[in-house]
């Protein structure tokens, strides 16, 4: 193998190695096991870890070396699949995109499951209500002609640009589970569903924008948004979520008057 590989073993570096990158970090993880206790508890793990590593690496270290029962979701581990959204130091982030050095590691780093969804075990939550809201806005292209198209559906660069921001969503639920309105009863559609509706409402090729707007005109639709901007802060893809919601509101109002 031609690729140089940095030698890194999980334990503390050899003594005398003055400029060691390793520091001791405490991870305070919210543990919940319904087969053991009805209540969730905090558990501390001390790790020797390079602060340039990510929170996900620390969780891997805990799971592989310290406590194999720690449960969390992750798939690609590179910020694309959106399965490892969690509440780190009180803020929703992707564990695979959060570097330890950015979290003031001299203090314990708290890791919790995202709020507003039922916790199944440790950091794993039931995502079904989230995906139900997503399915409700019909996140797929709808056209009125039932015939199979004979050519590509063309679109100008400007028309594509109109909804470019909302195509970035990876459905990690960081926004929806940071929304205080969603925390209350979970009936609110949530920012993620509205973002994905926005992606089709403002797509010039799609013809069911009216239907989607009607769905979001629901009592638990866009009007429950209180513009607290939690979703915009939480989005790991930097989508301007609150702006997208405001654009849907404006579309609903201008459609009527």
């Amino acid at each position, binding site marked *: 193998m031609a690729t140089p590989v940095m030698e890194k073993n999980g334990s503390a570096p050899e003594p005398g190695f003055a400029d060691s990158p390793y520091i001791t970090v405490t991870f305070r993880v919210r543990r919940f096991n319904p087969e053991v206790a009805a209540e969730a508890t905090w558990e501390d793990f001390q790790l020797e870890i390079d602060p340039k590593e990510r929170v996900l690496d620390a969780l891997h270290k805990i799971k592989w070396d310290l406590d194999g029962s720690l449960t969390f979701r992750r798939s690609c581990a590179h910020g694309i699949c959106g399965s490892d959204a969690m509440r780190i130091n009180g803020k929703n982030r992707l564990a695979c995109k959060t570097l330890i050095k950015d979290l003031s590691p001299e203090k314990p780093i708290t890791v919790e499951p995202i709020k507003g969804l039922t916790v199944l075990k440790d950091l794993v939550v039931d995502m079904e209500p989230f995906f139900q809201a997503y*399915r409700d806005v*019909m996140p797929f292209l709808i056209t009125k002609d039932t015939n199979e198209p004979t050519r590509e559906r063309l679109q100008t660069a400007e028309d594509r640009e109109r909804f470019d921001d909302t195509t970035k969503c990876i459905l990690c639920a960081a926004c929806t589970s940071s929304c*205080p*309105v969603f925390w*209350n009863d979970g009936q609110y559609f949530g920012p993620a569903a509205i973002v994905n509706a926005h992606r089709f409402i403002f797509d010039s090729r799609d013809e069911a924008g009216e239907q989607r707007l009607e769905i979001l*005109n*629901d009592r638990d639709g866009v*009007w429950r948004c209180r513009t607290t901007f939690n979703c915009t802060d939480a989005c790991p893809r930097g989508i301007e979520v609150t702006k997208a919601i405001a654009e849907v509101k404006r579309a609903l*109002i201008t459609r009527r008057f």
Partner: protein
Amino acid sequence: MSTTESPASGIGPVEGASLYSADNPAPLIEAPRARTKKTPKSTRGNFEMVAWLFMRLSGVVLVVLVLGHLLIQLVLDGGVSKIGFAFVAGRWASPFWQVWDLLMLWLAMLHGANGLRTVINDYAERPNTRLWLKGLLYTATVFTILLGTLVIFTFDPNIR
């Protein structure tokens, strides 16, 4: 290798003979918005949109009405010490101030009540709490609006 040996998966072969025909169609994919009987009925209608819009519009009007009201009552012409029965009677002799105060009363009460309604919706956890809080809110709002309107229209400066 025959492609017809794995029909259980429900997925047709990518190439070769199809598993399905007109007489034997592929299973339907369940509609994405299918919901159970337990799902609460969707409450579409424009009420929430009108309420949202009303908050914005009444807010803008109230800024003018309330700031103007405070300026006249508390700052101009000797400030708060001038206010008395005679001052109010003098103001309400003019239809302009009657309309100003009536508009302020209605807009402020409806704006505040709608704001509290959303707060109750967001924070009350049990349906019963929600019902009672909203009942109290609506009663208080209707009472205040009716009483205020009655006073503005039936005000008699010659009372003793």
